[in-house]
């Protein structure tokens, strides 16, 4: 395997968790709910995936556990913000605080243990084609899920009736309710989908990216995923582009550190976050695209009158 392939592969591995978490949050936000707890759900997925994979010896069961924990965590958020109409910003933050705390508690005995890695796809002949082989036929299974998610979510949001309904709820929950659409049920499902994605993204971190458990191992990726949704102005294909851009930035800084470039390593570590800020500023310049795509009800609670 050549150098180019290796770099492209690591970029894909770094981009995958960002992509999955962001695509989940995109669906949540399209329904008009702002869940700032992505980091919390993601880290719960990471710890759940790692612990269960270690205990059962099967990384696939770990992946399922990661998804399940993400959904469970998101249900806490859903209950507060949808059933109790609590402030979404504050509840999302509490979910992150709770997730970071609970995950370090759950994972404490597993710190430093070698994990179970989810193996890469290895097809005869196909995976051996130079360049394309490893990139298209030789990656980890979650990579393929992430691509399928982008296509699936695109199709769902813009080609199905349920997707149209979901977007209409995000744009005006009062009209949707007046039309007899069960607003709260749609939102519950959207939040749970977001939780499943965040959990899976966390599972990717602890089962593929670095198969071990480290406290706070998400290291701000949940927040970058949130920024990606804004960056993508709520379009799935642009989330894909954004995630790979950020994957490239974070891999670039790792390579720069390895090469011993005469820049403090801390500056390089801070680079993805600085890049996020710059990108957010640039994208907010484009007022029209933002206005067209931003779900108008984003962050506003809805209580049906009876």
């Amino acid at each position, binding site marked *: 395997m050549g150098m180019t392939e290796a770099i492209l592969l690591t970029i894909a591995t770094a981009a995958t968790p960002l992509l999955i978490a962001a695509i989940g949050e995109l669906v949540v936000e399209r329904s008009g709910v702002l869940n*700032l707890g992505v980091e919390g759900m993601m880290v719960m997925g990471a710890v759940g995936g790692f612990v269960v994979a270690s205990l059962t010896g099967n990384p696939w069961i770990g992946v399922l556990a990661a998804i399940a924990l993400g959904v469970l965590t998101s249900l*806490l958020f859903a209950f*507060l913000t949808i*059933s*109790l*109409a*609590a*402030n979404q*910003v*504050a*509840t999302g*933050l*509490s*979910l992150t*605080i*709770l*997730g*970071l*705390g*609970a995950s*370090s*508690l759950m994972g*404490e005995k597993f710190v430093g243990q070698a994990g179970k890695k989810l193996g890469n796809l290895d097809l005869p002949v196909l995976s051996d084609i130079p360049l394309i082989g490893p990139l298209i036929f030789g990656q980890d299974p979650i990579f393929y899920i992430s691509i399928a998610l982008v296509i699936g979510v695109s199709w769902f949001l813009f080609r199905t009736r349920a997707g149209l309904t979901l977007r209409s709820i995000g744009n005006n929950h009062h009209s949707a309710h007046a039309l007899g659409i069960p607003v709260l049920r749609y939102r519950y499902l959207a939040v749970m989908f977001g939780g499943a994605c965040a959990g899976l993204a966390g599972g990717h971190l602890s089962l593929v990216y670095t198969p071990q458990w480290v406290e706070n191992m998400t290291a*701000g990726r949940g*927040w970058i995923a*949130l*920024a990606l949704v*804004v960056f993508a102005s709520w379009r799935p294909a642009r989330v894909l582009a954004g995630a790979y851009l950020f994957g490239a930035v974070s891999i670039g800084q790792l390579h720069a550190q390895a090469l011993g470039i005469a820049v*403090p390593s*801390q*500056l390089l*570590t*801070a680079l993805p*976050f*600085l890049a*996020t*800020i710059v990108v*957010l*500023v640039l994208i*907010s*310049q484009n*007022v029209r695209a933002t206005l067209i795509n931003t779900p108008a009800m984003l962050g506003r609670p809805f*209580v049906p*009158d*009876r």
Partner: protein
Amino acid sequence: MRLELIKRSAPAPSMRILSPLLGLFLALIAGAIMFSALGKAPDRALYAFFIEPVSEMWSVHELLIKAAPLILMGAGLCICFQSNNWNIGAEGQMIVGAIFGAALPILLPDVQNFLILPLMLIFGILGGMLYGFIPALLKAKFKTNEILTSLMLVYVAQMLLDWIVRGPWRNPEGMNFPESRRFHEWARIPEMIPADGRANWGFVIAIIVAVALGIMLAKSLKGFEVKVIGTSPKAAQFAGFDRQKMIFFAFLLAGGCAGLAGIIEVAGATGQLRPTVSPGYGFTAIIVAYLGRLNPIGAIVAGLVLALTYLGGEAAQISLGLSDKIARVFQGLILFFVLACDTLILYKIRLTFGAAHKGAA
């Protein structure tokens, strides 16, 4: 079973006070369940977590040390959140405040007189304000989401601190440990009652600031402006209140408070700059603000409560052999339950059984 929210004709003021108490109570119950699940007798565990840390004088002092930054930042965030500015980067503003303030005793170790400490506090405030200015500017000029930018800047500040302590500001006589030189006596905040414990005058500063902010919010025109802009942007516009200016006001105020908290932390308890200055006080301060009803006076009480969770975590580690991570779980639970109970301010909750009655009541 279904849960229905029924809007009250007016917000219930009693619930505004009762909700945090109810929330704390529910968090305690959840905590008791958690302790049982971890195989500890819940009564003894809760006692060790919440009572033992304040049963001795020296640990009360530790409580005040931890409460000072929480109260300061919580009070600043109250104003920020009330004006609808979502600064969640207090942690970063605290770090930069600590760096700015610490610059004086580290870079000018020979300047030793009574002026140095007040100057450090001012530098700390300026550092925090400067760092709070960035998300404010981006929000005001470019409409960039302040939640994301202020949070991203926390990671940047942490890396800046790490670099400066391991690199240029490393103690030349420090055996290569990643820490700055120790501050000289003039650069330390004196302890209040050294015979009893370590608590320093930083706690008093925090109380004074919180009370001043409380009075400002309740009595001044600026305070009124904060509340109007937060609750009713349209009315604020008619009144001629400037939302753009409020963004800067809120962020500079909260940033200044956080910067002050940062320099109080390093000039008080630690006495030098280390790679981490705060165990997440800036994020806990968000909980302080909410538990304190977004009221700076309330933040004093809430700051003490959350300081206790930090001490409780340490106590649980020592006397119960549990992880001090429990503290963070407790903090999350408190915010969670308080937010849930806040629903009762605006709504009554009704549980209905069986099939839904469409159109009933």
